[in-house]
C-alpha cells in the first residue's frame, strides 16, 4: 500500500471514530439533560399530574362541578404537623377557591421543608391551576412556630372538552413535605402525620 493510500485510510478511520465519540458524548449530555427537559415537558403539558401555575383567575365560569380532595404527608425525618383545614371542597370549574393548610413545627429548633406535589388522576394536572401556593418555594419554620398557608386554585373550564376528563368526578391534590437537604438534622423524629388518612377513606 502506498503511503498516500495509508494516510487516506488513517483519515477515514479517524473520521469514523470521531463520529462515534461525538455520538457517545451527545448521549451522555442528553442523559444529564433528561431531568430538566422532562420537568419542562411536564410543566408545559401537565403530564404526570403536574399542576399548572396561573397568574390570573379565569374570566368565565364553567358548567361542571367537581370535588377536590386534599392529601397532606410529612416525611419521617421532618418534625412537622401538616394538615388541610378541610378534607375536601366541591366547586364549579372556573371558580377560584382557597384552602388553608395548618402547619406546625413540633421541634425546638428551626426546620426547613420543601413540598413535592401533584394531582391524581394524572390527566387532571393540565387543568389544575394554582394562583398561590406554599409549594412554590422552600418553607422555614422557627422552633415551635405554627402557621396557616393558603392555596388558591381553580379548575380550568377547558377540562370539560377533554374526553379523558369526562368520567373524572374527583381530583385529589397531594403534598408531601420533605426536610430540605441542607437543613440542620432534625433531632427528634415526630410521628409521621397523614391526617387525611384518618379523615377520609382512600379514593378507590
Amino acid at each position: 500500500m502506498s503511503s498516500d493510500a495509508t494516510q487516506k485510510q488513517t483519515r477515514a478511520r479517524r473520521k469514523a471514530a470521531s463520529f462515534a465519540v461525538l455520538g457517545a458524548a451527545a448521549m451522555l449530555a442528553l442523559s444529564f439533560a433528561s431531568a430538566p427537559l422532562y420537568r419542562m415537558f411536564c410543566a408545559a403539558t401537565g403530564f404526570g399530574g403536574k399542576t399548572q401555575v396561573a397568574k390570573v383567575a379565569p374570566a368565565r365560569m364553567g358548567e361542571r362541578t367537581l370535588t377536590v380532595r386534599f392529601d397532606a404527608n410529612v416525611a419521617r425525618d421532618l418534625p412537622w404537623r401538616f394538615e388541610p383545614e378541610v378534607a375536601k371542597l366541591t366547586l364549579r370549574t372556573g371558580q377560584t377557591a382557597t384552602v388553608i393548610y395548618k402547619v406546625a413545627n413540633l421541634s425546638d429548633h428551626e426546620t426547613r421543608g420543601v413540598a413535592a406535589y401533584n394531582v391524581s388522576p394524572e390527566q387532571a394536572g393540565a387543568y389544575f391551576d394554582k394562583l398561590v401556593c406554599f409549594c412554590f418555594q422552600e418553607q422555614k419554620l422557627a422552633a415551635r412556630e405554627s402557621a396557616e398557608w393558603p392555596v388558591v386554585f381553580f379548575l380550568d373550564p377547558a377540562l370539560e372538552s377533554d374526553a379523558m376528563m369526562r368520567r373524572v368526578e374527583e381530583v385529589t391534590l397531594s403534598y408531601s413535605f420533605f426536610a430540605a437537604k441542607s437543613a440542620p438534622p432534625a433531632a427528634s423524629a415526630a410521628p409521621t402525620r397523614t391526617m387525611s388518612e384518618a379523615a377520609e377513606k382512600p379514593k378507590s
Partner: protein
Amino acid sequence: MASSTTVDAHDRPRGLGRFLFSTNHKDIGTLYIIVALIGGLVGFLMSIAIRAELTHPGITIFPGLAQLLHGVDPAMALDAGKDLYNVFITVHGVIMIFFFVMPALIGGFANWFIPIMIGAPDMAFPRLNLVSLWLLVGSLVLAVLSLFVEGAPGMHGFSGGWTFYPPLSANLGSPGPAMDFVILALHLLGASSILGSINFIATIFNMRAPGMTLHKMPLFAWAILVTAFLLVITLPVLAGCITMLLTDRNFGTSFYDPAGGGDPLLFQHLFWFFGHPEVYILILPSFGIISHVVSTFSKKPVFGYLGMAYAMVAIGFIGSIVWAHHMFIVGMSLNAQRYFMFATMVVAVPTGIKIFSWIATMWGGSISFRAPMIWAMGFIFVFTMGGVTGVVLANASADRQLHETQYLVAHFHYTMSLGAVFAIFTAVYYWFPKMTGYLYNETLSKVHFALLFIGINLTFFPQHFLGLAGMPRRYIDYPDAFELWNVWSSIGAYISAVSVIIFFYVIIDAFVRRRAAGANPWGVGATTLEWTLSSPPPFHQFQTLPRITGSGHQ
C-alpha cells in the same frame, strides 16, 4: 487467497509481554475469552449456591457461607446469610452480563473473527483494543473488591440487585462504600465497551477487503456493527445515570432523592434506556454466529440474507425505544403503557424473521449434525421459548401478575442463560479448531450439549410454574407449597454443573492430544474468509488483501 507464509512486519512480543502488551487482535481476543471463562465460572458457581439454597424451604446454605467468606459471628449469621444471598444474585447478574457474555461474544469472538471475516489485517486501532481489554480487567478487580467492603449497614457487598435501583443503592439502603466500588467498576467497564465499539465501527466501515460491500459482509459482522452502535448510544446514558447516583451518594446532590426535588424513577428510566438495549447487545452477536453455523452445516447460503441483516438493524432500533416495559407498575399513564406494550410486541416481528430464516436455511439443505450444528439448533429452540414468554410479559396487564416473579426469571434465562450461552458454546465448538489448530472430541461435546440442554431446561422450565403460582424472585426462602418444582429446578442446575465439567475436559483433552484440524474442518459449507487461512491463522493475516468477486454475499 492469502499466503500463510507471511513475514512479520515488526517484532512480535513473546512470553509474558505477549499477554500484557500485545496489540494483535487474536491475542487480545484470546485474553478476552480467558477473562470470560473466569467470569463465567465464578458466576456459574454462584448460581449453583443460589439453587442449593432454594432446593428446599428454609435457610440452610448461606448463613454458613457468610461465616466462611466473611468470618461473621455465628449469632449474626442468619441475617448476614440473607444479605449474602442478595449479594450473590446481584453479583451473579453483573458478572454473567458484563464479565461473561459480553467479553466472550464481543471482546473475544468478535475481536478474533471480525477482522478476518472482512479480510482486514487487524482492528482499526490495535492499541485502543488493548486499552479496552485492560479497562475491563480493572473493572473486574473493582467489582470483586466491592464484595469485601461494607454495603448495607453491617453487611459485606452490594445486595440491591443488578439493576441498582435507588433508594436501595442510595445512602438510604447501602451507605457503605460497596456501591461506590460497583459504580466505578461500571464506569471503567462502560469506557472499555465504548472504546471497543468505536474500534469495531471504524474497522467495519473502513477496512473491508476490496469488493466486499456492506451488503456482501458476513452476518456476524452485521451483528457486531449493530451491537457496537447500540453500545455507543446507550452506554453513555448508563454512565450518566450512575454518575448521578455517585454524586447523590457522595456530594449531596438529589437527582434521585424526592426530598431535594429529585425522583427515583428517573434512575429507572435512564437505567432501562441502557438496560433494555443491553439485552439485545447480549443476543445480537449470537444471532450472527448462529447464522454462520446453520449455513455451514446445511451447506447452503443463509436464507434471506438482506432480511437477516436488516432484521438485526430493526431489532436494535426498536429495542432502543421500548425500555419502560420494565416499569409497567411504577404508575405510568395508560397511554405510555399502551405504547411500550405494543412497541415491545413489534420486536417479535424481526426476531421471527430471523428464526424462520434459520429454519428456511436448514430446509432442503444437506444437513450434517456436527457438534456446532446441534448447539445452534439448541439455541434456536431455547431462544424461541424465551421469546414467546417475552411476548407474554410484554402485556402490561399480564405483567401486573408476573413482574418480579420466577416467571420473569425463567424468561430472561431462556433468552440469556440458555440463548446467549448456547451461542457461546456454538462459537467455541465452531471456531475452536480454527483458533487453536486442534480438533476436539466431538462425541463428548455432544454429550456436553445433551447434559446442558436437559439440565438447563429442567432448571428453568419449572420456574414458569413457580412464577405463575406467585413465587417472587430475589427471596432466600419460600412457602412449602413451592417445594416440588424448586427441587426439580435445583436437580437441573446440578446436571448443568456436570456438563460444565465435561466442557473443561473436552478443551483440555483437545490441547493434550493435538489432533491437527487443517484449514477447514467443516467442508464446503464453510465459505467465510477465516476458513481460507491456516489453523491457527498466521500472526498477521492478509498481507495481500483478499479480493471479493462475484455477486454473492459471504
